[in-house]
């Protein structure tokens, strides 16, 4: 089950980047086919998420993104080390 915090952040950022209604987004749809996402849109989306969530997503992972669900999964995956560091468990 995806963390609602990341789902909300991705929904808001993506709707802003693509100028879409946030309530109409399908997290399983292919970004390029369903929303006409370009490589530039993708870079902006990831950059904004990285700054907002204080994470860093490696370049190869960005290129492999197909859906908004993938974006949420990446945000979750790369936020873990930061949380561990914050709690002294890293």
């Amino acid at each position, binding site marked *: 089950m995806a963390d609602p915090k990341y789902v909300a952040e991705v929904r808001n950022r993506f709707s*802003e*980047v*693509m*100028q879409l209604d946030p309530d109409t987004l399908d997290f399983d749809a292919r970004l390029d086919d369903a929303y006409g996402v*370009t*490589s*530039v*849109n993708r*870079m*902006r989306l*990831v*950059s*904004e998420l*990285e*700054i*907002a969530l204080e994470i860093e997503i*490696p*370049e190869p992972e960005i290129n492999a993104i197909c859906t908004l669900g993938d974006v949420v999964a990446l945000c979750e995956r790369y936020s873990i080390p930061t949380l561990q560091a914050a709690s002294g468990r890293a």
Partner: protein
Amino acid sequence: MSEKKKILLTSVFRPYASKNSKYNKDGDEEWLDYMASRISREPGPFVMSSYMSGTALTLIAANLDADVTVMGHPSLDEYIAELKKQPDFVGITFLIKGLGKLFPMIALARKHAPKAKVVIGGFGTMLHNLGNHGADFLCRGEGVSFFRTLIGQNPQDPVRQPDVLGDVTLKCFRNYPFLPRARYAELTHGFGCPHKCEFCTTSAYFGYVHIPFAPGRQFYDTMVDIHDRTGISYFYLYEEDLCLYKKSLNEWGGAIRDDKERTLFWHCFSTVKSLTSWDLEELVSMGLTHVWIGIESVHSPFSKSVGRDNQALFDDLHSLGITTSGSIMFGQDHQTPESLHDELDHAVSLYPSTFQSSVLIPSDGTKLRERLEAEGRLRPANYWDSDLYTEVVNHPAFKPGQLRDAVFWAYDEFYRRSGPTIHRLAKHWMNGAERFKNSPNEGLRRRAQLLAERARAVRPILLRTSEYLPPTPEVHEMIGETLGRIRDWFGAPTSAEEAQAWLVKRIFDLEMAKNAVYPREPIEPDLKYRRWISGREVPTRFVAAA
């Protein structure tokens, strides 16, 4: 009284090497050194080096009635620290290659300076699919008027030229700060170009028109001011075809010619077309010392290339002591793999003092890109492949990879046949020295002596380093002849020059040995940090906000 607007203008962030950044690819940092990466791209230790200082942001800063901070090459931490000082505007300039860095910088501005309006500018704004970029304003074109309008200042206010200084040396000398460097100042005469060459990014960026910035006598006054304060007498002038603007050039160049106290020199970009309309000796008397001419092709289809025969023009320029940059492009419609040999032969025959080869680049926003897109000839490319040799065009006569290989073949072959840039410069300087040594014109005689002294400064670099030259006998002969001419003028090398020559030899030995064992680490630029308040530069240093 209202407070001055606080403005932060910045380039994209360093590092530029790929090693510590996901935003770069290998070798990106080398583009910052335009001599080493472009016009003196040579194997071996003679390769020359010059880092452009980034005139655009300082030009805007010096011309605003505001409190403006300029950051060149900040780290992300330095950029964030500056954002925390809460500027009213954040201006970010970027090239297409820097696109990946733009978005985190906008996002950081939103986070750390939430009230700031974000402006993006520079050639990167030409990107065809930039779309909804997330900034508040997009500045495409001339930035001074744009920012003046943005802050409510009259865009027609008089303009100022900031001090933008740079230097030239050999690349391997940069590790030895005690070695002398030739200093220059950068000045802006105007923007854009009316020749409308279909491939030209600059022409397209400024809407295919010329926008004068500081024409006429004021240009000379600025040179004098900088010269008298800094001792610099060499000026690198920004204008796409400077010699096209005869009225202006006659005003400021005439003042240089008539100046009995100072001998000022300038470097410019120009064209066969506009140079054809000048008496070249008159241009020498006005200070022309170096001109970059886009040759493009032996069969150049561009209107800027109409006029004098290339060979006659380059021969005349060199005979007058004017050094040249000649650039050619591979991948034009009329070219074939076979004709590239003719292109290179032509370039070698012109013997430009510095040389550039590149692939034809259909930059975003140009008519060329529009045409090739309509013809279905563009290959998919990553934004960071925006450079001078990555192929992004399908050409029916070339296999993939062939044009890229040709660019590097041309550099190597040109070097093998023509030798190092530093020698060609010295040779052409000696031409001018000898030509005007006994001129009845006192100003030209002064220039002759200064050109000879420039050539003499190169002598220690060439005296003991022949083992590092290409093995071509003609190159060795040419250098021997130039050294002979310097000897004829100044006599045998002094003991100090002999000592310098041995030092250069040892530096070459050391640097080449070092490169063989330890590949050279990327050279990253330091932060450049300057501040202007209402057009007056104030002393400052970077301090992070408390």
